[in-house]
């Protein structure tokens, strides 16, 4: 029951349009800092582009996908009209306003501070205010998800919340709480300096605040992907979800342990004590748990589909899977990329191993593999799956969609594998220019060239994706039927209250934030001697 299709389509189109532009910038960056190009001679252009790429890809694009998908889930899983449509539009327009407000100073070169802000670098205040508006717009969505679930519960007392909605609301709560870190950094620290009310900033405290957001935001990006694993994939390939409870437990675990682990981003920072670094490192290890549960459950669900299609033997069911179905292809690619990316992540979270790769291109390779690879490829799958229901028209040609997914998969591997490799060789990240004639890095020239070629493949795939979505609007109208989610092998009739509500889990999430972040933040905030002069970029 998708009623507000226009609202959902607006979110997806804005998300994917921004994604296309940011992808173009990303490919340009890969090209100009590779040995294929002489060098633009002005690092400022590079950082300007990098700031725009990161801001759109990190804040605007995944937030809009999560919101649009969230509205679609609300209407189709709960079988009720969305409550608060006007507020939803208000949230959407706030994000449009915020994105434009943030991008204008970036385009003018007044805020080339990268999307992770990096105080004491300070850019134009409009950039930060724009980012705040994007976050505020998404908080409206969080509130709407909660309200819609409440409305449904009132009419269906005691019934199990459909898994898609349960996971969707878990993701929205995770986002609401994790965005608080960056919001505190922006409102209490950066914006007062950007407006000229203060000239010094506690850069160490700002980094701790940002780490509060920076890791769990990845799990917020991941939520639509995991929801698609559990609630789209088994249905799309003609199977059944192996376990509904396992899904609930995985999303609950994400809610609890995705949050109190961000200090592993500041392993090299002197302002955080080694004890807290160890605690965060250990909790980061725990976050592998819901992913392992998911990999197990989804593989089991896919096996069910294979067996239902007549597959036999230990591996015979794999061959008979519907490999021509884009969703099947996407989930297989996503798992392969997730496997490699996850293995890299285990290295990053280790206090000792991290010292080898910290601030090298390994890290950039890692998060592109996880986010750009495992996560975004499922965003494509979600769009392909939802599009006929949103537009009332079938996709033009599934061969194009398969080619697009293949290109993305190959492109992502060609881009990120050499990227990891040069990181191990010690190539630093966040640099605009590399002198490949220097004997110290000339052996890396080949890998970087390969990486840039991968970026071109990704760009072609991204443009093809937009082409498919756009041409779908001009196909002849067909009736796609109601949008449905996977059915579990044993559909839940009753669910323990703890697996049907969030209070306990949100309380644990906040409690762990207090134990794992409380002291480092309190001690830095209370000391008078931790501020440094701000460095204003793009001014004078």
């Amino acid at each position, binding site marked *: 029951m998708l009623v507000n299709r226009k609202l959902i389509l607006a979110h997806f189109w804005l998300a994917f349009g921004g994604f296309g532009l940011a992808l173009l910038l990303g490919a340009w960056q890969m090209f100009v800092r590779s040995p294929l190009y002489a060098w633009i001679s002005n690092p400022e252009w590079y950082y300007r582009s990098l700031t725009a790429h990161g801001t759109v890809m990190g804040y605007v694009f995944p937030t809009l996908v999560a919101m649009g998908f969230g509205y679609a889930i609300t209407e189709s899983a709960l079988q009720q009209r969305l409550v608060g449509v006007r507020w939803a539009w208000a949230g959407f327009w706030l994000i449009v306003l915020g994105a434009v407000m943030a991008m204008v100073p970036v385009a003018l070169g007044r805020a080339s501070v990268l999307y992770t802000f990096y105080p004491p670098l300070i850019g134009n205040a409009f950039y930060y205010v724009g980012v705040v508006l994007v976050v505020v717009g998404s908080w409206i969505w969080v509130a709407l998800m909660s309200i819609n679930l409440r409305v449904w519960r009132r009419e269906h007392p005691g019934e199990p919340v459909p898994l898609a909605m349960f996971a969707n609301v878990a993701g929205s709560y995770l986002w609401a709480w994790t965005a608080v870190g960056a919001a505190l950094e922006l409102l209490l620290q950066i914006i007062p300096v950007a407006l000229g009310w203060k000239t010094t900033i506690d850069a160490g405290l700002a980094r701790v605040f940002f780490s509060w957001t920076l890791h769990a935001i990845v799990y917020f990006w991941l939520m639509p992907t995991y929801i698609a694993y559990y609630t789209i994939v088994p249905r799309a390939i003609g199977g059944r979800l192996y376990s509904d409870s396992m899904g609930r437990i995985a999303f609950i675990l994400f809610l609890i342990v995705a949050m109190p682990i961000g200090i592993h981003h500041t392993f090299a920072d002197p302002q955080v*004590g*080694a*004890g807290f670094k160890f605690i965060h490192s250990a909790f980061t290890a725990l976050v592998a748990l819901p992913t392992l549960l998911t990999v197990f459950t989804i593989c089991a669900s896919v096996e069910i589909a294979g067996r239902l299609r007549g597959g036999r033997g230990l591996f015979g069911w794999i061959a008979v899977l519907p490999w021509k179905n884009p969703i099947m292809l996407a989930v297989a690619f996503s798992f392969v990329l997730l496997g490699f990316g996850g293995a890299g992540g285990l290295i990053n979270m280790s206090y000792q191993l991290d010292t080898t790769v910290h601030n090298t291109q390994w890290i950039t390779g890692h998060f592109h593999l996880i986010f750009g690879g495992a996560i975004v490829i499922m965003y494509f799958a979600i769009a392909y799956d939802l599009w006929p229901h949103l537009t009332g028209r079938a996709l033009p040609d599934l061969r194009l969609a398969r080619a697009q997914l293949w290109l993305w998969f190959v492109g992502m591997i060609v881009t990120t594998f050499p990227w990891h490799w040069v990181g191990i060789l010690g190539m630093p990240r966040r640099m605009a220019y590399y*002198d490949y004639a220097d004997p110290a890095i000339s052996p890396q020239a080949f890998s970087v060239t390969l990486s840039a070629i991968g970026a071109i493949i990704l760009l072609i795939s991204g443009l093809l994706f937009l082409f498919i979505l756009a041409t779908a609007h001009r196909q002849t109208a067909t009736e796609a039927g109601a949008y449905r989610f996977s059915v579990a092998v044993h559909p839940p009739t009753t669910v323990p*209250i703890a*697996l049907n509500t969030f209070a*306990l889990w949100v309380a644990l999430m906040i409690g762990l934030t207090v134990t794992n972040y409380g002291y480092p933040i309190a001690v830095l905030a209370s000391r008078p001697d931790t501020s440094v002069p701000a460095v204003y970029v793009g*001014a*004078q």
Partner: protein
Amino acid sequence: MSAREIFSSRNPYFAISVGVVAGIFVLTAVGGFIILPYAQPELKFAGIWDVICSAAGLPQRSASSDAVQPVRRLSEVVLTPTTLAHPTQESIGRGATLAQRCAICHGPTGVSRADSPNLAGQYGIVIYKELVDFRSGARTNAVMAPFAVNLTDREIVDLAAYYAFLPRLPAYHPQQQLRKPRVVIYGAPIRGVAPCGSCHGSLDNKAGSPWLEGQSETYLKFQLHAFASGQRTNDISQQMRNIARAMTPQEIDEAAAYYASQPSEIVKATD
């Protein structure tokens, strides 16, 4: 089930999840705050409380040694792009009178014939910062220091306003313009040297960095060597010392010759 029932020890989900989470937290805390610090033989602790405070990141002064004091006075100036942005006419006028005593080295029009810096049209906050540093002793020079020590805050602001107001004039010894050397445009990333041009003009300008076009080659070279040897220390956070130390003597020569050869009129007007 109401909230009270969820948050009750009789609810197994509550008891188990809170127990497991608390258990993991306590275990990791014991590991991170007690066992691991003790596992590092090079760390010496007075007692268990000392160990915990150290692992928590509480800055503490070790009993055996006092905090290291810098050998030299450091600059205490904090600049923003808006510092001294709009000087008054009175301030510029007072600065003109005060500047008469500077003319013997820096020239009556702010252009030097004595390998001292040309000040005409230099950014106001740059002159302000150097004068404050000369006055405090963060920057030392046998000739400049006696002029600076007795200046008041207002006099320093006035002088900065006056020199910023003066038009940029051609250098006294104009040279043929040289090509941009690599270090000015690219820096030397492998050695951590940012391009000169990313702060001092040619590419971009950052608050507090002087423009260098048409300055004396001897002066520029001398200052780079002074930063490299640690003789000059008034750069905030060692920005220039870190760069100058990593520059080769040839790069220093090239950068100084290049900037000296540029006409100062090309500096982008900012006001």
